[in-house]
């Protein structure tokens, strides 16, 4: 058997919905596992990133940790894929772009319902938020985009099979949606 394709995945400012949708390829995961193996991913709980053939990233880019991780994925993955609405245009997290960071943090940590000891966190351990959420392609070069909130399971299946077989990536009408 030839060497299996190594895949890493992560979620930045995302909800893991893209990951859940990926799992919705159901029993075909077994078939897929003959061709691929996972590196860093929440699916296996592997925490360190090695050299990979494909990196799949969901979520917008909103803080320093996101930024570093995204750059690391770009460095270590031959093919980098922006998956889901948040990765592609900031999505729901980017709705905070209509407000200043001060307004957002005060709403959450000062004025929020049930907040005790109200203050904006300043611990150096906590990643700093950027003043805006950005799509991934504004930070690193992205090779493929999988739209959707989340991208449907069929889109993942189509994409990985076409990529693994060296075919051009083509989606059917029902696989492309932005919601």
């Amino acid at each position, binding site marked *: 058997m030839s060497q299996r394709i190594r895949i890493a995945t992560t979620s930045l400012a995302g909800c893991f919905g893209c990951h859940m949708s990926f799992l919705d390829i159901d029993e075909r995961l077994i078939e897929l596992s003959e061709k691929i193996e996972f590196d860093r991913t929440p699916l296996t709980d592997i925490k360190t990133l090695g050299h990979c053939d494909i990196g799949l990233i969901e979520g917008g880019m909103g803080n*320093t940790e996101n*930024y570093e991780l995204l750059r690391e994925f770009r460095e270590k993955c031959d093919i980098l894929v922006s998956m889901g609405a948040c990765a592609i245009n900031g999505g729901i997290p980017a709705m905070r772009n209509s407000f*200043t*960071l*001060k307004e957002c*943090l005060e709403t959450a940590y000062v004025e929020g319902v049930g907040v005790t000891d109200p*203050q*904006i*966190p*300043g*611990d150096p351990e906590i990643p*700093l*938020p*950027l*003043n*805006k959420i*950005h799509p991934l392609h*504004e*930070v*690193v*070069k992205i090779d493929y985009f999988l739209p959707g909130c989340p991208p449907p399971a069929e889109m993942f299946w189509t994409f990985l099979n076409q990529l693994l077989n060296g075919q051009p990536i083509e989606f059917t009408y029902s696989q492309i949606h932005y919601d």
Partner: protein
Amino acid sequence: MNAGYLGLPTVVNNVESFVAAAMIMEQGADWFLSRGTETSTGTKLLSISGDCAKPGVYEYPFGTSIRKILEDCGADDPQMVQVAGAAGTMIGETDFDRCISFDDVATGGSFMIFDRSRDLPEIIGNFIAFFVHESCGFCTPCRVGTSLLQKRFDKLLSGRASRLDLEKMQQIGTLMKVTSHCGLGATAPNALLDSLKNFPSMYEDRLASTQFEPAFILEDALQEARTLADSGAKS
């Protein structure tokens, strides 16, 4: 404009045309045809400005080379000539033998000279900013394209661009050229597109890398958070 004076077809000419018409009446058509080239007859008034000893309004027969004009007005060290205004044609040294005519370098008369002391990217940035301001906002490619070009060009000017940004600007400019509603949008990217073609090394020198460069500066994007975290830690 959908109708002319009193709702009738109306010709509006500029002073230069009236002068030409009057001269033709006085001297005859043959006299007029004896100047210029076969397809661009007569003469052209050029408003010469910029880096030359003798700026002013010059009259030349069509078919005169840019090099001749530059010599006449005392442009000692020309780097580039912008012919026909911000939406016109950008001529570099290798094209100074091209001629003013309808078939070659067409012009309404504007002739701006920039010598070697000038920073061309900065000048092109000015042209791009001019069209961001001039776009009326009616059609998509001009309204959005002018601002997209400005963002990318500012990135280039601040030394944060990669070759991919040059390719993207080329793509956006080309789209504006063919899909804009009017001539303004179609010619707004001219200075950029001409310079990408005629002065490629100038752009290469400015690139941060050949690979990808981020669209924004991380440190700037963290300013707000740092201020908030500092004041939070103090309180």
